[in-house]
C-alpha cells in the first residue's frame, strides 16, 4: 500500500455566498502548483441561502503523474468524519454544524471560520431574542479543532467592500495552515483566471491576508448586563443613592429617557413610582434594575407623538446615509411607512371624547401614509405631530397607559409581599406589551390573560404559591414564543391542571 494521504478540505457556506467560487480558486491554484485535485459539492439550491458544502481532495505534487492517465487517484466524494484537514466556514453556525457532524476533530482539523452570524429564520422570527449562544458555539468549535482561526472575516469583508469568500482565501493563504504548498501568487492568479469581479476579489484577498487582532466570537447577548450610556454612569444624585448600585445606571437612563419623552416632572413621577420599592424586603438589585427598566420603557410608550419626535432627529439622516453607503454628492431621501389606526389617532383626544369617538368608528380603520421626512412637506407634518408633546398628558392613550402602569405596579407590589421570585416574573411580563397596532393589541390581550388566569389566582391563593414564579415564567415564555398562536392557552390549561391535581392530592 502506498502511504500517500490526500489533503482534504471542506467548505461550509450558505447558498449565494460564493462557496463554489472559493472551491474553484482552490482547484485552480492547486493545479497550477502541480498538485492533483478533485472535488465536489452539494450546492443545494444554490443562491437560495440554504446550507451548502464543497469538498476537495488534493494529492500533493501528483498533477503531472495523473493528468493524462485514465486511472487517477480514487478520491472520495464525501468528506469523512475525522478525516478532514481543513474546514473553512463562512458563518459560525455552519462551522458548528461541521463540528457536530464530526468533520472537525482535535487530532487533525484546522478550522478557519468567520465568527459572524447569519441568523436562521427561527432565530430571526422569534418574538424577542431567539438567537443561539454564539460564545458557546465558538467555544465548542475551538475545543474540537486542532487549531481554530475564528475571526469576524465578515466585518473585514464589509470594510474592504469585498466578497467574504475572497477574504477567507486571503486568511487561508496568510495562515499557512493549508498542508500543501500553494503560493499566494498562485491564489491571486486563480482569482484572475476565474475572471469574476477580479478587482473586488483581489481586494478581499489582501484584506484577508492582513494581520488582525485576534477577535473572539463576541456573544452580543446582553444577558444580565444592561449597557448604560457612559455619560450617564457619572450621574450622581441624591435620589439614585437610595437604590441598589446594580440598578442605578438603568434608573439614570430611565430619567434621561422620560425627560426627553415628556419633561422633568414626568421623570420625577418615574422616580416616585420606583422609590417605594427600593427599601422593600426582597427587592434586590436585580429586581430593582428590571423594574426600573420595564417601567421606563412602559412610561415612554411609542405613541404617535413619540414616533414623530424620534423620526425628526438630526442624526437619522447621517446614520441612514452611512448605512446605505451613499457617496458624497448623493441625495438621500427617507420616506416613512406609517399607518396609524383609529385607536392611535383618536387616542390623541381627551379620554371621554376619545372613548366616545372610538365607540362610533371601526377599530380596524387605518390610514396608510408615506411621509418623506427629508422634504419640507413631510417634515412639516411630523413636526406638527411632535409639537403635541405638551398635550400628551391630556390624551386618552396617556390615560390608558398610566392606568396600565398603575395596575402592573400594584400586581408587582402584591407579588413582592408573597414571593420576591414571583415578583421578578410579574415585572418581566411587561415585555409582552410592546409594539404597535395588532402586535400591541395581541401583546396586551396576552398580558391580560396571564394576569387574569395566573397572577390574580396566585395572589388570591387559589393556585399553589410554590409554583407562582414558575407559572408566570412559563406563561410569559409561551406568549413570547408564539404570540399569535395557542401556546399560551395550552400553558394556562396545564397550569390549571397541575393546580387541580395538587389540590386534589392535598384533600
Amino acid at each position, binding site marked *: 500500500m502506498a502511504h500517500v494521504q490526500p489533503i482534504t478540505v471542506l467548505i461550509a457556506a450558505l447558498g449565494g455566498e460564493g462557496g463554489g467560487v472559493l472551491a474553484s480558486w482552490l482547484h485552480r491554484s492547486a493545479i497550477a502548483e502541480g498538485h492533483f485535485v478533485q472535488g465536489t459539492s452539494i450546492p443545494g439550491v444554490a443562491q437560495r441561502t440554504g446550507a451548502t458544502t464543497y469538498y476537495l481532495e488534493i494529492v500533493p505534487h501528483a498533477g503531472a503523474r495523473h*493528468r493524462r492517465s485514465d486511472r487517477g487517484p*480514487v478520491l472520495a466524494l464525501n468528506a469523512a468524519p475525522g478525516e478532514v484537514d481543513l474546514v473553512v466556514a463562512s458563518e459560525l453556525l455552519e462551522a458548528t454544524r461541521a463540528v457536530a457532524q*464530526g468533520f472537525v476533530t482535535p487530532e487533525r482539523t484546522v478550522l478557519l471560520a468567520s465568527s459572524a452570524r447569519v441568523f436562521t*429564520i427561527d432565530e430571526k422570527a422569534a418574538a424577542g431574542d431567539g438567537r443561539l449562544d454564539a460564545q*458557546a458555539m465558538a467555544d465548542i468549535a475551538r475545543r474540537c479543532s486542532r487549531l481554530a482561526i475564528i475571526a469576524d472575516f465578515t466585518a473585514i469583508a464589509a470594510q474592504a467592500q469585498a466578497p467574504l469568500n475572497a477574504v477567507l482565501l486571503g486568511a487561508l493563504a496568510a495562515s499557512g495552515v493549508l498542508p500543501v504548498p500553494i503560493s499566494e501568487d498562485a491564489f491571486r492568479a486563480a482569482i484572475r483566471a476565474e475572471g469574476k469581479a477580479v478587482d473586488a476579489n483581489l481586494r478581499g484577498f489582501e484584506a484577508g491576508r492582513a494581520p488582525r487582532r485576534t477577535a473572539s466570537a463576541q456573544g452580543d447577548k446582553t444577558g444580565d448586563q444592561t449597557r448604560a450610556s457612559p455619560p450617564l454612569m457619572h450621574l450622581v444624585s441624591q435620589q439614585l443613592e437610595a437604590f441598589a448600585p446594580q440598578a442605578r445606571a438603568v434608573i439614570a437612563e430611565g430619567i434621561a429617557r422620560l425627560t426627553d419623552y415628556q419633561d422633568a416632572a414626568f421623570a420625577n413621577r418615574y422616580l416616585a413610582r420606583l422609590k417605594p420599592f427600593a427599601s422593600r424586603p426582597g427587592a434586590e438589585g436585580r429586581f430593582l434594575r428590571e423594574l426600573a427598566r420595564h417601567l421606563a420603557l412602559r412610561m415612554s410608550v411609542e405613541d404617535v407623538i413619540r414616533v414623530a419626535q424620534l423620526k425628526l432627529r438630526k442624526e437619522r439622516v447621517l446614520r441612514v446615509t452611512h448605512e446605505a453607503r451613499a457617496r458624497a*454628492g448623493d441625495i438621500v431621501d427617507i420616506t416613512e*411607512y406609517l399607518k396609524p389606526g383609529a385607536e392611535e389617532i383618536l387616542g390623541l383626544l381627551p379620554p371621554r371624547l376619545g372613548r366616545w369617538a372610538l365607540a362610533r368608528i371601526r377599530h380596524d380603520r387605518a390610514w396608510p401614509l408615506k411621509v418623506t421626512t427629508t422634504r419640507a412637506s413631510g417634515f412639516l407634518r411630523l413636526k406638527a405631530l411632535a409639537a403635541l408633546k405638551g398635550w400628551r398628558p391630556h390624551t386618552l392613550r396617556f390615560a390608558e397607559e398610566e392606568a396600565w402602569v398603575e395596575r402592573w405596579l400594584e400586581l408587582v407590589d402584591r407579588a413582592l409581599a408573597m414571593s420576591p421570585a414571583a415578583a421578578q416574573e410579574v415585572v418581566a411580563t411587561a415585555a409582552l406589551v410592546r409594539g404597535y397596532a395588532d402586535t400591541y393589541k395581541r401583546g396586551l390581550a396576552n398580558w391580560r390573560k396571564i394576569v387574569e388566569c395566573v397572577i390574580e389566582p396566585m395572589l388570591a391563593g387559589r393556585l399553589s404559591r410554590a409554583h407562582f414564579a414558575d407559572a408566570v415564567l412559563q406563561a410569559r415564555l409561551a406568549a413570547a414564543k408564539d404570540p399569535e398562536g395557542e401556546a399560551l392557552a395550552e400553558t394556562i390549561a396545564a397550569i390549571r391542571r397541575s393546580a387541580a391535581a395538587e389540590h386534589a392530592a392535598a384533600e
Partner: protein
Amino acid sequence: MPEVSFHQQIESLRLGAGEIFYGEGILAVTKALLQSGVSYVGGYQGAPVSHLLDALVQSQGLLSELGVHLETCTNEAAAAAMLAASINYPLRGAVTWKSIVGTNVAADALSNLASPGVEGGALIIVGEDYGEGASVIQERTYAFALKSSLWLLDPRPDLPSLVRSVEMAFELSETSNTPVILELRIRACHMFGSFATKDNVAPAHSANRRLGPAPFNYDRLSHPPATFRQEADKVERRLPAARRFIFENKLNEQLGPREGPIGIIVQGGLFNVLNGRLALAGLSDVDGRVAIPTLVLNVVHPLVPEEITRFCAGKSAVLVVEEGAPDFLEQAIGQILRKADVGTQLCGKDVLPMAGEYTPLAVGKGLAAFLARHDRAGPALEQWIARVEAQQAQVGKALVAPLPARPPTFCTGCPERPVFAAMKLLRREMEPVHICADIGCHSFATFAPFSQGNSILGYGMSLASAAAVSATQTKRPISVMGDGGFWHNGLITGVAGAIFNKDDSVLIVMNNGYASATGQQEIVSSAKEAGGRGPGIDIATALKSLGVGWIKRVRTYRVASVARTLRAALRSQAKGLKVVIADGECQLARQRRLRPETARRLAAGERVVRTRFWVDPEVCTGDHSCIRLSGCPSLNIKPNEDPLRSDPVAHVNNDCVGCGLCGEVAHAAQLCPSFAQIDIIQNPTGWDRLKQRLSTGFIRLLGGGGRSKPALVTAE
C-alpha cells in the same frame, strides 16, 4: 439566459485530441456526447443535470458546426419521446433529466421507446437525486430499468470513467438495440476533475446532413401484434447481446486479487466511498489498489450471471454494497448464485442500511461488521467508528439542543414571497384553507416563516391534487403553481381537468418568467428580453382558451392587493376555477440584467436612483412580526443599541434590492412605523440639487431637523 454562465466551460467543449479538460462531471459528460458523434440532445432541466442543457444552450455555434440538434423540451415525457428519432434511424441521441421525478414523467414514452428498441444509440442521462442535497422523493431509477428492459449504467465517479461510460453506452445501445440510462449522483455531477479529450465527431446524419423517411416497418411500432414480438426480442436477443458486450468490453471491473475468502460487489457510483473506508482499514490505498477481490458494477442492469458466479465461486462470502431500497442487486445476485448452486454467503442490507445515502460512516459500519464476521476486522476502522460516534455524542451533549436546520428560502426581493405574506395575513383574518403546494421555488413556503401547504404531488400537479379536496371541503382550497409547473403539465393535468369537472377551487400561478428553481431556464411564457429564447406566450390567454372565466392578474409586491384578490377568489359566489396570475419577474434574473446596466449608467455620470429599505432601530421594539411575515434574507436582526432593551431589533442589510415588500407588509398588516424607504439619488441633476437645497433650508428654518438625542440630562 440561464443563471449560470458557462462561458469558460463552453471553450472546453471544443477541446481536441490530447488536450486536458478541467471541469465538473456533468460537463465532462456533455463533452463526451460531442466526442461520441451525437446527432441530437434534449431534456428537461433539474438539479443536478441542468448544466448539461444550460451549457449546450450557450454553445449554439459549436452545435451548428457539428450539426447537433438541441431541444429544450417542455417536460421529460417530451424528452423521452424525442428519442424516437433513434428507433428508425442510425442517429445517436441523448436526453437528460432529474430522476426519479423526471423518469416518472417520462415513463410512458420510455416504455414505448424500449419496446421496439433503437437502431441508433439512445442515451438517457439522469441525475440520481438521492441523499444529501436531494430535493425530491427518495426512490431509485433502477425499477424503471428493470421493468422496461433499459440498461442502467452507474459508473465509478471519476471523469475518465464517466467519459468512457458515455462512449461505451452508445455502443452498448446500438449492439443490443436498447436505450441505456446513465445515472449520476449529485456529487458525481458536481465533481471537479480532469480527463484527456478527443476530437468532437460530426455525426454522419444530422441537422446538417439530413435523411429521408424510413420505409414502413410495423415492427418499429409499439403496437400489437408487434409488441408481443418485441417483448420476446427483449429477453431472447437484446439481453444476451448486452451481456456479451458488457462482458467482452469489461465494462465491469474486477479489482484487487483474483482469489480470496471474501469479496465485495459494489455499484460503480459507490466505489469511491467504499475505497475510502477500505483504505482506512488498511485494505486499499488512495490509488484504489484494494486487497480484497472487488467487483465494480459500472453496469448495474443487466447483470452478467457468469461474471457474478465466476467472481463468487470459491469465496465463503461476498458483500453487496448497494444504496437505497429495494435491494434489487442483492436479490438478483442471490438468485444468480442459487440457480448456479454457488454456496457463497450473501451479505448486504443485513449489515448496511436498507434506506438512505451510503455515507462514509454508513459504509464504514457495514464494512466493519462484514469484515468482523470473516475475521478480517482491522482495528483502525472500528476505532474510527467509535471515535466518530463518541465525538458526535459529546458535541451533541455540549450543544444542549440540536442545531437548527438551514433550509433554502426565497431570495432577497423574490417576487413570490409577497404572495405568501398575503396568504399568511389572510390566514389571520379568515379560517385557514387547504393548500395544495407544488414543486418550484414556491415550495420554500412550506418552511418557516410561512409554514403552509397540505400536500405536494409533483411538478405542476397542485391543481390536480386539489380535485377531490375541493369536492369535500367546506372552504375552497388554494393550489399554488409556478409558471414552470404550469407549462410542464399543470395546464393540461390541472386546468383542463378542473374545467372539465367544474371543480370549485382557486389556483395561483406564479408568473416569474422562468423555470427559476432550476436556474432560470426560459419557458414558453418567457419574454424575449436580453437575447432570450422565450416566445412570450401569455398565460392568461392560454387559460381563457381553455374556458377559465375568472382570471385576475396581480403585481405580487402589492401585498394588500394580492390579499384582496385572494379574498375575492375565496369568497366569490361564482363556482368553478378561479385563477390568480401573480406577476413578478424572478429577482435573480432581474438583478443580473439590471446590475451591469446600472453600473454602466453610474460610470457614465447618469442619474440613478437606488432604493433600499431601512428599519428605524429607535422605533423597532424587537417583536419581529415583520420577519414572521417576510423571511427575507436581507431583513435581519442586530443587537439593540437601546440600553433599556435587550431584544435584538430588525435590520435591513445592504443586500436589499428595494422590492418594497417590508414596507408593503408594514402597511398591509399595520405592523409598526419602523420601516422607511431610502432613495439614494446618485449623480443628481441640478434640478435635484436645487429642490433638495430648498427643502433643507425650509427644514432648518423650522428648527433644523429637530433636537438631538440628549446625551446627559440631570434629574431635578
